[in-house]
């Protein structure tokens, strides 16, 4: 039985259906009106609508707009990398690994510790690229271990139990890792060492910071590598087979346990990479770093179509751009003040909107695996 927010074919029947239909229309109307108001405001800042609704609107300059898009894309790439972990685990085991965001935090923390040690030794300045590679490798290893241990301790014994039970467990794992980091490393924000100038400078005609270019390039490359691994290697084939049907896969001689461990390992490695990129971009990390990006990355996985690799990246970029541009593009022209505080709200609203309008996500032509049950 498929239970999604998808409307049934035909006219709405119950009160809830009417309400949902109303919500969908209302959401689309807000977006449309906001967009039109924005465009009007860009054409003529003193138009009658703006005069009533948002008198001190200034509009966005081209450079501002470009900056928002770029930062949104860079952030979105990181969400995409994290989302891969959610998406793959969901594809194979059919539950949301709530603690995956904390694996990302562990990666950022590991990067912080190792890079500071490298900076003390003087290698960080003298050989930035080499040190970066080193901390990426260490962080990926640590995150892989974290994810694999997590699977072994908390999830494997629960395989086959009702679906909400591993989800609740993963909330516990998330809480545990977060607070373990708090008690071990303290509550203060930890800082990455200073990065070389070329990372901070703006490059090319688009005036993009080096760090953002780095983030986007690294994400896309690792995404491509992962795509190759999943689509063209034997291990990847096993993953897809287990995602399709674990029982049949086992009958075909695939070691299901090992495949699931691999899925966690790959997801963890990607989260570790994302953690380093986060550190390079924002240079500061706390024990709470993993929570919101984790949930947004999950939203990204859903928006892109859960279980779909390319979808994760696309979803991540959409969420990133939406939360960076959305408030200014849609909410501010509608007269909402202090819009930058509503970034997170926009990201969550996008998740809700997607689940209301198209629950299978952008690329989710195939229904998620667990609907078979």
């Amino acid at each position, binding site marked *: *039985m498929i*239970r*999604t*927010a*998808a409307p049934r074919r035909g006219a709405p029947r*119950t009160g*809830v259906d009417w*309400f*949902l239909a109303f*919500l969908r229309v209302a959401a689309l109307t807000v977006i449309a009106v906001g967009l039109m108001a924005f465009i009007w405001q860009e054409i003529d800042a003193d138009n009658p609508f703006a005069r009533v609704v948002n008198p001190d609107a200034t509009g966005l300059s081209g450079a501002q707009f470009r900056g928002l898009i770029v930062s949104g894309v860079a952030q979105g790439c990181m969400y995409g990398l994290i989302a891969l972990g959610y998406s793959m685990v969901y594809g194979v085991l059919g539950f*949301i690994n709530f603690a995956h965001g904390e694996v990302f935090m562990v990666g950022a*923390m590991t990067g912080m*510790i190792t890079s*500071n*040690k490298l900076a003390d030794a003087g290698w960080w300045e003298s050989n930035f690229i080499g040190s970066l590679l080193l901390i990426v490798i260490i962080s990926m290893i640590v995150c892989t271990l974290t994810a694999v241990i997590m699977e072994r*301790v*908390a999830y494997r*014994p*629960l395989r086959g139990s009702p*679906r*909400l*039970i*591993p*989800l*609740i*467990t993963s*909330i*516990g*794992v*998330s*809480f*545990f*890792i*977060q*607070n*373990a980091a*708090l*008690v*071990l*490393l*303290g509550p203060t924000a930890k800082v990455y060492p200073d990065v070389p100038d070329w990372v901070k400078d703006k490059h090319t005609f688009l005036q993009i910071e080096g760090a953002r270019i780095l983030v986007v390039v690294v994400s896309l490359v690792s995404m491509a590598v992962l795509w190759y691994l999943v689509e063209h290697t034997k291990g990847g084939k096993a993953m897809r087979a287990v995602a399709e049907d674990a029982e049949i896969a086992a009958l075909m001689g695939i070691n299901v346990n090992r495949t699931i461990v691999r899925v966690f390992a790959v997801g963890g490695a990607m989260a570790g990479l994302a953690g380093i990129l986060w550190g390079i971009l924002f240079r500061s990390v706390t024990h709470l770093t993993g929570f919101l990006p984790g*949930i947004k990355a*999950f*939203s990204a996985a*859903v928006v892109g179509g859960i279980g779909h690799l390319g979808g994760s990246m696309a979803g991540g970029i959409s969420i990133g751009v939406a939360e960076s541009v959305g408030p200014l593009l849609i909410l501010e022209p509608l007269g*909402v*003040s*202090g*819009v930058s*505080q*509503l970034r*997170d*709200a926009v990201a*969550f*609203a996008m*998740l*809700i909107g997607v*689940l*209301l309008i198209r*629950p299978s996500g952008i690329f989710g032509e195939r229904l998620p695996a667990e609907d078979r049950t």
Partner: protein
Amino acid sequence: MTDSNSPEVAASEPGPDLTPGGTPDTPGTPGVADLAEAGETDETLLSPPRPVFAQNWKRILSMGAVGVGAQIFLALSNMPLRLDDRLLIKPILSLGYVSLLFVPFIAGNRVGHQIQREGIPMHAAGLHEIFGGVICGVIAGGGVSLLSVLLVNFDLREPLVNWSPMLAELLAFGNSTAFAVFIWLLLGGLAGAAGGAMRLVNPKARRVVVTMVLTVGFISVLESLVMDLAEGLRFEWLTERVYARRGGLNWNWALILAAFSGLVAMLTRGRVRQAREHIASLEGASRARTNFGLIILTGAILVILPLFLGKFTNELLANVGLFVLLALGLNVVVGLAGILDLGYVAFFAVGSYSAAVLTAATSPRINPEMPWLVALIFVVVITGLVGLFIGAPVIRMRGDYLAIVTLGFGEIIRLLFLSDWLADTFGGSQGITMIPGAGIFGLGSVSGTEPRNVFYLVLAFCALAIYISWRLERSRLGRAWMAVREDETVAEAMGINTVNVKLMAFVVGAILGSFSGAIFSAKVGSVFPNSFLILVSIVILVVVIFGGMGSIPGVIAGSAVLIGVLGGPRQPGLLSEFSEYKLLIYGALLIWMMLARPEGLIPSVRRSRELHQQEIAQDSWLREQLDEEAESTAGNDQPARATA
């Protein structure tokens, strides 16, 4: 049959029940418990103990490694240092050292698990278990030894905030490092041996030992509560002797208490269970009478007791009561209807804010300054509507999506209260302050300065909420909720309108949460967006799961134990030393509960049957097989066990 994951092992080995407040004889699932009993009483038919050195070395090593990790983590989390001031028994034992001895004990106990085949132990326990426990305990204790050596020789204070010479000194009991290495190997071995030895004593003796340890533990840990009670009930003359001046029990009194509780446990052995079974077996009018009597008794105690308690304890009770209200509300949503709502804090927030806006004169835009009780009506309506509004879009989603989306809603609502956009209504990050207390029919105002009155108010609402959930559980709607929880498709086929039924759960949960919110704002006198973090939702969820999803007594016990002892997200508990670690403990508890006891502390019978359906079926199948086997092989040359 591998290890402790198998249901039989888990069921037949309650082990030293170390959950606070957990009685070792809590009735589990009927089938599993029966089998466990059978396994325990079968001792005469066991094979002789295993040889001492025939250990499962791989298991010992892996358990030991886990122990080493746990020890190092515990030590570096600063727990020993922080808890060192909390003396349990003066002058020998502080909570800090107990936390470090706990790991080898558990490891030593767990490593000596019995080989079980088809739910029945194969060997009698013997020196084998103790030896395994010692080895495992030594390895785990070696974790602390290793750490003491590392602490002296390396400086990792950069990332690890608790890496300090003070810790090294504490671990070495103020002596040299070599002493620390030696003493922790020794202590680990002893604790491991004790853990292993727990396997040798028969269950009845074990119960007595556990009771003794728990009694001493509780009385020393709950010192501030006992002191407060003593002041009110005038038995300071006793507590002055029992407790040392700087906290902790005097050792001679610890011995007296242990002996006394052991004696009581020995004398009442089995009686408690008998009484409980007797009550459970009552039917009809006498059952109702007994229940009524028990409820009246509990109510009377709860009404009279606070009169003798100080401010601190009443405040604590009021906090516990607020969380009981919240947990009862979430219990309707999660426990009865099976909807995992991670944004439950939203209703708490809406309840608090609407009460604040309606009653406070300082509320920025809308300030009708209603009396609290009048405002409550509006609060309930508003929160119910919000429940409907949040519920309607999410209700058709699958369970796990729903969880994340409700979490999103919870965060959106907090962000809206925080935002500048709505700041001229809700005060933004400044919140709303100077909220007047709750005036009750001219009986005086209930506000935070009078925790006792707050507690009575909370108690009244708790009684109301308990009554509502109790009636609902047995109503048509309640049965529909449980049907939806168990199988939505079947429920729909039975003619239940699942969407409406689930929405009702949302609304009822929201309304119960709004009571708590309204009392909270009157009690604290101010509301800020930061009181309503997602964290609160998760803590309430832990309370519900720890207590037992769908079980009203469970939820109450869960709040009392967790919020009362460890403390809420912002509220201090009895063990204020634990405030840094309570969230860590909540996380670990959530994992552990899900792995070991998903039905909770005081399970609802129906719910645990659902969870263990498979195991019960499996057990009865196994038993049938065994019986058949026994019949077919009777008289043949078979191991004694098979002919049982």
